[in-house]
């Protein structure tokens, strides 16, 4: 038995809307589970195409989460810690992949990196063909997931404030040291939840992927594309695969949260 600081307690009424909200979000999941054809569950989810799609989804989502972190952390830091003209507009623009319907996002990527896109010709000249490859899947996922990471992290950075960074500077730490030893560790929880959001979004991404990368088994057919396709011909398989997606997500999210818990 360890001594614990107690919380101040929550107002009782708050549990009413909270439960309502939880039920609203959870019931549909229950409904999906209720529809699963358990007799054929294992064969359905272990078919070759399912395994290929799951594997591809996991790999591409991981890579795009890493990309989101590599590019998104600097963006969030710049947005949170500097002030310049037009920053507000830039921030809104960075959020846009959120609001674009994924299919339009996919089109925009095609218009940019496709064979006839803005950069496509340059890339083609270099012999790089992005569209309809696994690289395209990663790009589509990165494009739609990036705002999640940037927004959560910028919020965390602003809430954490600059006080400790200032202290570190007065102790002689240069900007890079401050960033590595103070800024990052302090916002680690925010960074982790941002990364989890980005991973989750990448894992569920479908519209932009199909439009920009197509849906070819083993190369560009991710689990959501497979589900989308199966939904027509084999709803049972679609539901079973959706459940797999859900389980993978729960495991990954739970894992990340646990890691986060232990750093606190």
């Amino acid at each position, binding site marked *: 038995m360890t001594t614990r600081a107690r919380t101040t307690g929550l107002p009782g009424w708050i549990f009413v809307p909270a439960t309502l909200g939880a039920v609203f979000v959870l019931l549909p999941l229950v409904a999906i589970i209720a529809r699963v054809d358990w007799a054929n569950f294992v064969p359905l989810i272990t078919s070759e195409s399912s395994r290929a799609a799951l594997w591809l989804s996991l790999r591409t989502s991981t890579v795009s989460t890493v990309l989101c972190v590599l590019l998104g952390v600097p963006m969030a830091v710049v947005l949170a810690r500097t002030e310049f003209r037009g920053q507000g507009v830039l921030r809104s623009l960075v959020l846009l992949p959120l609001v674009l319907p994924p299919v339009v996002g996919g089109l925009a990527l095609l218009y940019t990196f496709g064979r006839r896109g803005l950069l496509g010709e340059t890339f083609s000249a270099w012999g790089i063909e992005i569209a309809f490859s696994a690289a395209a899947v990663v790009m589509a996922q990165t494009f739609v997931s990036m705002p999640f990471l940037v927004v959560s992290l910028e919020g965390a950075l602003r809430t954490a404030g600059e006080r400790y960074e200032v202290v570190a500077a007065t102790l002689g730490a240069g900007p890079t040291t401050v960033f590595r030893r103070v800024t990052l560790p302090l916002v680690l929880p925010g960074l982790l939840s941002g990364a989890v959001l980005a991973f989750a979004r990448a894992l569920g991404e479908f519209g932009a992927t199909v439009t920009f990368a197509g849906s070819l088994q083993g190369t560009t057919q991710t689990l959501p594309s497979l589900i989308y396709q199966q939904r027509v011909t084999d*709803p049972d398989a679609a539901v079973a695969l959706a459940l797999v997606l859900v389980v993978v997500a729960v495991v990954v999210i739970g894992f990340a949260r646990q890691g986060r818990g232990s750093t606190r």
Partner: protein
Amino acid sequence: GADDEDTTLHVYAAASLTSTFEQVAAVFEEEHDGVDVELSFAGSSDLVSSIREGADADVLASADLATMDEITADGLEAGDPVDFATNTLQIVVPPGNPAGITGFADLAGTDVKLVICAPEVPCGAATRKISENTGVTLSPVSQEQSVADVLGKVTSGEADAGLVYVTDVIAAGDEVEGIELPEAADVVNTYPIVALADSGQDDLAQEFVDLVLGASGQEILAGAGFAPAP
């Protein structure tokens, strides 16, 4: 032949061909040792835009002639497109037909929850044409983007009736019931297929087209409810 080691044939086919082309591909792989057929299914217009944007496709089987015209307009075809199947609309209702639909005329009116395809997609265009031909004004509760969405609304019991292709009704099995629609006979959807110019494996692509047009291909298509091309 034995020299086909590790080659992959990319076939882009309309979503409504999913189950049939999977069977055709299996047959093709059996006949061509070492060849892997990779199928990519989507709405015809999505397929065409993918190909125009540089997707690595060897064969395209589309669900309407209009989209195929875009390919020929861009000169992306290796040979002339050939029609290989046709399809017609049917009324689809949930099992037991709760709203008691018997024919096209029953679909008019607001007490029947009817879902149809949006006029922008082929099945929607066909629906509109039947409606014009028969003079029956439909008041759907939803105009869906694809056949799959129409079927989804019907199989879930949300809608009382929908208008989809015969092949879709058959594919959906006992989750739905189909109701013959004589008025649809005049509004036929034609499926063309073509080998593509950028393929790099012209022979293999043409062999796949030939298989679809040949006896075993046609048999599979007929089994799924497709009518032969005229």
